[in-house]
């Protein structure tokens, strides 16, 4: 007796002994009723193969692209800092090292992740702040990491710049949403104001000098915000 399960394996071309395959083949030649069952099975399997195409949403595609760029940026970060030392002169180098020291200091001081680890998104922290202290720590690291990631930004390739901005904007939005959910409307507004600044750095018409000038402006404002957070860590972020 030949069952539908046998026919299924026969169709897939495996899971049956050669003798059994030969039996089924002979039966299909000889038995019209079995052939009808076989054809119906093939028709059904074909229909099940014609499921609608699943498109990747643009937001998913851009998130994946941004994470790939972030991974690449993480690898290149030490090189960027080194090359900047040669080309930009001491004031910019000093600022970069100060930023790095700040980020490392915060990370060590709080026993938290390294700046390189911070290249990964912080969805859990940002999506659901369990307490204001952990939220503030996450926010401070986010701001310090943003500064670090933008080191050498003007010299990066356009695609990498776009991807990096997309990623930082996404993280920034998570923190803004988290701030809003915990009733910190003012902080949320301040964070959202960074978004426009970030996106303005990726305008295609800007030359290297223009990009660098906007980066320095953003750097300054990020620094101000970090200072405010550092000076008054015990108070609510409403004081920003």
């Amino acid at each position, binding site marked *: 007796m030949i069952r539908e399960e046998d026919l299924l394996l026969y169709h897939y071309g495996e*899971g049956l002994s050669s003798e059994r395959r030969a039996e089924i083949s002979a039966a299909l030649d000889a038995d019209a009723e079995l052939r009808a069952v076989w054809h119906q099975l093939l028709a059904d399997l074909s229909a*099940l193969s014609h499921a*609608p195409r699943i*498109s990747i949403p643009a937001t998913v595609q851009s*998130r*994946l692209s941004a994470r790939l760029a972030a991974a690449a940026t993480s690898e290149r970060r030490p090189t960027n800092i080194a090359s900047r030392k040669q080309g930009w002169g001491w004031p910019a180098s000093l600022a970069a090292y100060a930023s790095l020291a700040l980020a490392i200091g915060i990370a060590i001081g709080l026993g938290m992740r390294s700046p390189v680890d911070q290249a990964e998104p912080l969805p859990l922290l940002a999506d659901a702040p369990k307490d204001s202290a952990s939220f503030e720590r996450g926010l401070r690291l986010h701001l310090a990491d943003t500064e670090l990631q933008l080191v050498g930004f003007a010299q990066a390739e356009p695609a990498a710049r776009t991807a990096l901005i997309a990623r930082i904007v996404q993280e920034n939005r998570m923190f803004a949403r988290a701030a809003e959910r915990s009733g910190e409307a003012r902080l949320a507004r301040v964070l959202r104001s960074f978004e426009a600044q970030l996106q303005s750095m990726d305008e295609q018409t800007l030359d290297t000098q223009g990009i660098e000038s906007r980066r320095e402006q953003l750097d300054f404002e990020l620094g101000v915000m970090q200072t405010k957070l550092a000076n008054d860590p015990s108070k609510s972020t409403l004081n920003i």
Partner: protein
Amino acid sequence: MFAFLNSRPAWSLDEFQRVLARRGERWYAACVRITGDPGLAEDAVQEALLKAWTRRDQFRGESEIDTWIHRIALNAAIDQVRRQKPGASEEIAEDMLAAGDSPTTVHSRAAFGQDLGRALERLTPLERMCFVLKHVEDWHLDEIAAELNNSINGIKQALFRAVRKLRGDLQQWRGES
């Protein structure tokens, strides 16, 4: 001996981004079918993509990257299913249907897609994974058994149940349409 003849310059970020743009949809679709959940599928693709980036000097061509990421993404998707409770997602989201189709096509595809999506939802995770890996991804039974840590006979039985259930739903859908 002449391995250097096959070598190519290291993949740049731009080149990798182009591979993602061209092939990402296929990886993502496969993972959505395995997990039934767009969020888990995205995580699986991301995991595979970042692993591939760290090994980018080992790939000679785009098809090699494509095959590697596809396989790793499927494995990651299977792991995601193992970690999740069964029946995570509602259905295939509307914005995942192919863009550029006429409203009528979109409507009929959406109807069939929803129906098939629900039918896949009713399968157990094992049945769904066996069906997708065998029928859509064309894996061998022994590969599926190894990946799912099951016997070949167990895989066959799950596949039979999946096809039986899906055919039942298909008949019902045909009768109603």
